[in-house]
């Protein structure tokens, strides 16, 4: 990232438009965390005065991603992975989100290339899997169908 967190003294804004047409005003320093947008600006696909269209993202997810970026920036002093995990759980609890929200966040993070959110989200799901004691528990937890016939089980 080219800007340090302290550089947000005089925020410059970037406008991001989500699929419904809603426009989000986001400080440039936060947008720096979104690799896709940052690259767009770098490559001058669009001026910073233009509105950047993000057709794949819905407005409420965008809000959460922006919130995440802000959390990360505020916490930039403590960069340990552990903190990120608890930050993610906080974010989820605030939004009263379930697995659904996690998946949406991950898809958004993937599209926008927000590495930290991708990390935290995938780690969250990995932790959920490790707490399951059996394949059946995993299926229950994530509502998955079993399509392996019983005689095909590998050792």
């Amino acid at each position, binding site marked *: 990232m080219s800007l340090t967190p302290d550089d947000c003294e005089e925020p410059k804004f970037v406008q991001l438009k989500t699929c419904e047409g809603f426009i989000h005003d986001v400080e440039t320093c936060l947008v720096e965390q979104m690799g896709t947008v940052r690259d767009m600006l770098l490559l001058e696909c669009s001026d910073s005065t233009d509105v950047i269209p993000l057709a794949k993202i*819905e407005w*409420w997810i965008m809000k959460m991603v922006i919130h995440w970026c802000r959390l990360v920036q505020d916490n930039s002093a403590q960069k340990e992975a552990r903190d990120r995990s608890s930050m993610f759980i906080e974010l989820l609890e605030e939004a*009263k989100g*379930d*697995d*659904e*929200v996690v*998946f*949406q966040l*991950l*898809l958004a993070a*993937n599209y926008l290339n927000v590495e930290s959110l*991708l990390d935290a989200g*995938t*780690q969250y*799901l*990995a*932790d959920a*899997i*490790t707490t*399951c004691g*059996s*394949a*059946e528990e*995993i*299926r*229950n937890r*994530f*509502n*998955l*169908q*079993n*399509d*392996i*016939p*019983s005689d095909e*089980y*590998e*050792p």
Partner: protein
Amino acid sequence: MSLRAYNIDDPSNDADQPDALVDFTAMLRQQRNGGRQREYGGWFGCGSKMQPEPPDQGYYIEQYVLGVLDFSSQYGIDYSISYTAANIIGRPTKYPSYGDYPETYTMRTYGDWWLKAPSATREIQAQNMPKVDTHDYIVVYFEEFVVPTEVAIFETFNPGAVVRIWAYGMTKNWTCLWEATDNDVKLGPGRESRRFAPPIKKTTIITKTLRIDFNHSRLFYYTEIDAIMLCGRTVSRIHNLLGRQRLQHRQVASAPSTPTPPSLPSSSEESGDGPISCKLRTLKFQPNCGQDGATKLHEFINNDLSQFLLENQVEETAEAPVSRLCLTDLPFEILLRILSYLDLKSLFRVGQVSRTFYDISTHPLLYGELSLKPYWHLASSELLCTLASRATMLRKLDLSWCGGMGNISPTEFKKFLTQRGDNLTHLRLNSCKFLNASCIETVGIVCDNLTELSLRNCATDPPLLNFSCLANLKNLERLDLFQTAFETELLLSMLESNRKLKHLNLAFCGVSVNMDEVVEHLATYNTQLITLDLWKSHFLTTRGLQFITKLHQLEELDLGWCLRESSLGDGLFKLLTNCPKLKKLFLSAVRGTTERDLMHIAALGKNLEQLDIMGMISLTHERVYDILVGCPKLQLLDLSFCDNVVDGEGFDDLAEWARRFNVDIKSSRFHLARH
């Protein structure tokens, strides 16, 4: 009168356990039937005093270690009686006294100092490690087979390192009898000796072999174990019992492990078109007569309930869209990323969830690093075979501690290596009992891309490394032969071939090695060396030390118990001058160290972080102070047996200096932490 009076050394052994009373009565009965000793087994050289025809019910015995099968590390050298694993045999000799006694079992390391040193390595596939991981272990055996009721470990110095107790049953499986929780490790035990007997799992296994796991990251100094006691009920007619146990084991093994989702009673189905009934339609209904009906119902409710809740949630929150994403809707890379955080056990579990997950969980990218060390008790030839088919991109492999009781065959290992070893960069085979000369040869031939080879604790007779099998390796940066004997010629040729060598560990390599010759080679061929461990290389001389001074990149040097001469000459001065990057310097029991040498350390040791000058009898307070002032980065200073300094009035000074200079000052006699 209680027969327990014999055990005056375990005062904590009171008659609160109801078991004891019952046994006592039984014993009395047996005694009347023709006299038998209550406690035997575990004595030096004593044979079993068993009657020719033992009665039906077993009797309760307490026994001490008869012999040691394996250990990952010890402080002393094999032929010595000080601080070696063999000291754990028999009755406790020091307990209940507390202190640093050579007649105990001590491991080579303590605390986290070795993890902070330049020679520290990273764990392979770190996500496999349990929260409280094992640093060291010892495997001991007793005389009599028993069903264990208690395991007591007599700790006589810095207690608190025991984290797991395992027992090897007659069915050839390891059972974990006890495991420390996070809390157990956090609470620092006091500085008193203790008879540590945690509550072990109730079990019916029959055993006479135990493995104790240690984690000493929280310890201030070395932990020392005086003895281990195994208490339990013996079994008569062992062969009959063995037959019965084996039969049970076979039955358990052949039972299907949840082959299909529980067969749902269709009468309780509510929504006819719901996903549950669709699921039902695609399944073959397979009633499992042996299963519990209540369990089925419970699982059915679980399934249905979660579905119901999910539907409910979506209706309530108007904001969230109703697209109903599933885990499998995530793109492949994200799923792969999620699975990459999983430990091996969870990964295999996920593979059983569905076809999709089986495909993802077997992707080679997830098997770039493989560590079976935390699964040492489960690792088998079959597992290796399964992993071989997946690990096509294997780069790092850790099979340490595996194959202890013949679970892995050398043939399977060689097959695995031949298939997957050609791209390996890191290979760790510490304490692998299945290794033979042929295996090592395979390593040498197949794994020519190795940058790290670790063969700790692989001492065999004749030595494993005894011909030019490893001469093909030319890219080594790290070679760890701790506690492993080797033929000098082989090592010399390896040193010549591996010019990029950075880390070399030859601790406990044995008395037959001409260490002067070895370091002469280092000075010629391996001048990029950063860390060198020559612990207990008795026959390293000052001549050798001169060669070491040519290694200008040295950051870590362990010369403990080397250089048995009266004077080092200018060796140490040269070393400190030529190796300014030195961070860790261990001169434990190097008797030739003089006052002048210490002045050099104080003057030149600008980067020193860890310093061990144990045994310097002539050490004075002034020199200690000089060193503390002159080495601003010092964190560890070991002054054990520097009798002039650690006894008497100087203690207060040392305590104050420890705080002022922020240094941990170690000694067998006291604890002086920086805070």
